[in-house]
């Protein structure tokens, strides 16, 4: 069927969204660069930037000088990062983070706490995040506007309604966490929620080491092992949003028991519990907490402790086998290791890549690049912020309208729906 030509309103919405996305993801740009990048003429760009400037979403200024140069420098369009922001949450097995993230992806302010491992209590989690949010919002500029909220959850999340289904390590079963959090925040915002590794993939794809890669795998470990898969530039969600759970791919049918009830899942063989068990340090988790315990094994291995070294190599071997399978299936341009897998990869790269060399077919592996997450420990948080920004980037018009009337100054905008990535 033929589509009717888009209305001028639709064109304007589309162009504003594209321009805003450009500034949000690529940072400051001159009008000329924007015109070139968007394929629009300079007068259209000028109209669009004027509209966004008037609304206070971007500002135009002279570039800071980096030396004497001839000629008049052209104006640079910058995001109003402190004025337009979202709330981003990270809900991990033993870590809760809340952050205020400005347009352009800058983390402006953050609060975090570790939570004891143990049964998942949604009320308690929502309570902590709501109290963090009050502190974050209070410290924002008086004229700052919150345009969305997003959360990264260490478990499975149904894409149709944001229902938190299951997390082998977090223990939740069927909780409307996004809805609970939205209600408790009382900001008139819907908190969009998605799987943490999927959001990590999105973050690295949009503003990390995976920029420009249309096909990538992101593997993330904290307590469990998760994955996010980008195929043809889009996150692979599956039918219900549960796609990419590479941690529960069985690599060793006769292997270790997994928290999910199966045996020999990638998570069971390369997760921190496996590493610590092989190194004879199971108790370290309780004493040190996950990340530090993993770090201690790496340091011991570096000092020549043979149990630690053996444990690291063993985990590296299994990780390489898992990656080899994934490379055969997806033929990615890049595999990114995040969370504690970043440390594991750098500490056991010889094992990982040897397995990849022998387990993946030459044609599939010859161009794949193995990288660590460029956003470091903030991948999933940055991903949650991207999720939160997605609505305003898809449809900046309503936000602009509210900014223009000034009705929203100092107060968050009302969101109409729980939209997703």
């Amino acid at each position, binding site marked *: 069927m033929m589509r009717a030509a888009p209305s001028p309103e639709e064109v304007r919405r589309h162009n504003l969204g594209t321009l805003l996305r450009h500034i949000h993801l690529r940072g400051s740009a001159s009008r000329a660069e924007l015109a070139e990048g968007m394929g629009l003429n300079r007068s259209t760009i000028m109209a669009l930037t004027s509209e966004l400037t008037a609304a206070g979403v971007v500002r135009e200024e002279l570039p*800071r*000088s*980096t*030396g*004497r140069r001839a000629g008049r420098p052209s104006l640079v369009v910058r995001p109003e990062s402190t004025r337009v922001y979202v709330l981003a949450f990270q809900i991990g097995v033993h870590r809760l983070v809340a952050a205020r993230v400005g347009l352009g992806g800058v983390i402006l302010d953050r609060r975090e706490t570790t939570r004891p491992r143990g049964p998942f209590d949604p009320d308690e989690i929502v309570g902590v995040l709501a109290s963090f949010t009050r502190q974050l919002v209070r410290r924002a500029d008086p004229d700052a506007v919150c345009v969305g909220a997003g959360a990264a959850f260490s478990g499975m999340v149904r894409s149709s309604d944001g229902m938190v289904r299951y997390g082998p390590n977090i223990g939740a079963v069927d909780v409307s966490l996004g809805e609970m959090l939205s209600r408790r925040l009382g900001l008139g915002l819907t908190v969009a929620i998605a799987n943490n590794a999927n959001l990590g993939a999105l973050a690295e794809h949009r503003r990390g*080491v995976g920029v420009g890669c249309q096909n990538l795998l992101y593997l993330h470990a904290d307590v469990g092992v998760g994955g996010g898969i980008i195929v043809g530039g889009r996150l692979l969600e599956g039918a219900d949003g549960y796609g990419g759970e590479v941690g529960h791919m069985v*690599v*060793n*049918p*006769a*292997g*270790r028991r997994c928290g999910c009830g199966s045996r*020999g899942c990638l998570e*069971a*063989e390369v997760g921190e519990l496996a590493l610590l068990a092989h190194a004879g340090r199971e108790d370290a988790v309780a004493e040190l907490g996950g990340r530090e315990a993993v*770090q201690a094994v*790496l*340091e011991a291995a*570096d000092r020549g402790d043979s149990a630690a070294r*053996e444990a690291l*190599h*063993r985990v*590296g*071997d*299994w990780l*390489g*086998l898992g990656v080899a399978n994934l490379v055969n299936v997806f033929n990615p341009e890049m595999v990114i290791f995040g969370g504690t897998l*970043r*440390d594991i*990869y*750098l*500490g*056991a*790269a*010889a*094992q*990982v*890549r*040897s*397995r*990849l*060399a*022998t*387990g993946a077919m*030459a044609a599939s*592996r*010859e*161009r*794949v690049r193995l*990288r*660590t997450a*460029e956003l*470091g420990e903030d991948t999933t948080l940055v991903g949650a912020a991207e999720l939160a920004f997605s609505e305003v980037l898809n449809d900046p018009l309503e936000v602009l309208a509210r900014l223009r009337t000034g009705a929203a100054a100092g107060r968050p905008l009302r969101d109409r729906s729980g939209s997703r990535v």
Partner: protein
Amino acid sequence: MAKARQWEPLDEMSVTPVLDLRGVDKSFGPVQVLHGAALSAYAGEVTALVGDNGAGKSTLIKCLGGMLPMDGGEYLFEGRPVRVGSPREAAALGIEIVHQDLALCENLDVVQNMFLGRERRSGMVLDEAAMEEMAARTLTGLSVRTIKSVRQPISSLSGGQRQSVAIARAMLWDSKVVVLDEPTSALGVAQSRQVLEVVRRLADRGRAVVLVSHNMNDVFAVADRICVMFLGRTVAQVRASDVTHAQVVELITSGRSGDGVEAGRPVPVHGRGTGPGGGAGRG
């Protein structure tokens, strides 16, 4: 001895190596230490130069950097034959060598170190604020986040941070080739990790990086290619994705690999007994 093998470049962009040394001979008095050594480095890639103690890595790097004259062999830069008679001539081509001792000035701060000896080369008059911003931007560009202030003296930085500053200096000056001699050998785990990530980013930002290392794990973590030297000869130049740890170790220790990697033949699986290659049920 097996002949050095040139592999197809990883992608179209890097068809011509930025740096291509071939058949390099070098003697110290009566002792010949390089026998037709070779090394190619490509833009956007990390080439690891490995070999046992005394294999000739540092000697080859010194020839590359103009610190030692070559007795024979070819030196191609961006496909053209060049003569590199001094470190200054190497620098003029855009070759930066980060030595293990780094040559940073302890008492100067990060900005001063990054601009040391270069103020005039740019032909542009830079004020302090501009230099500070460029230094900070370069470090941010390499995602070096742990250095709190670019006005800190070098003496207050950790070993990993110092390496990062030295690498950032190469980045700032638009070097085409950056050679790093054992950048992580003196560092602990956390700092090594930081340096490896910076090394990788330097290549991802388009530089040809040569990494001299004895640490096979570091090599596999970041290398696209591995150049193996044995007793003054280059015995293999292979893609890192085509070889296993065991094969590289064999090349380093014996100058050849039982399964013929240096000749490009297929590679059998090496079981380690403890991992996926080991017996079932050993999890």
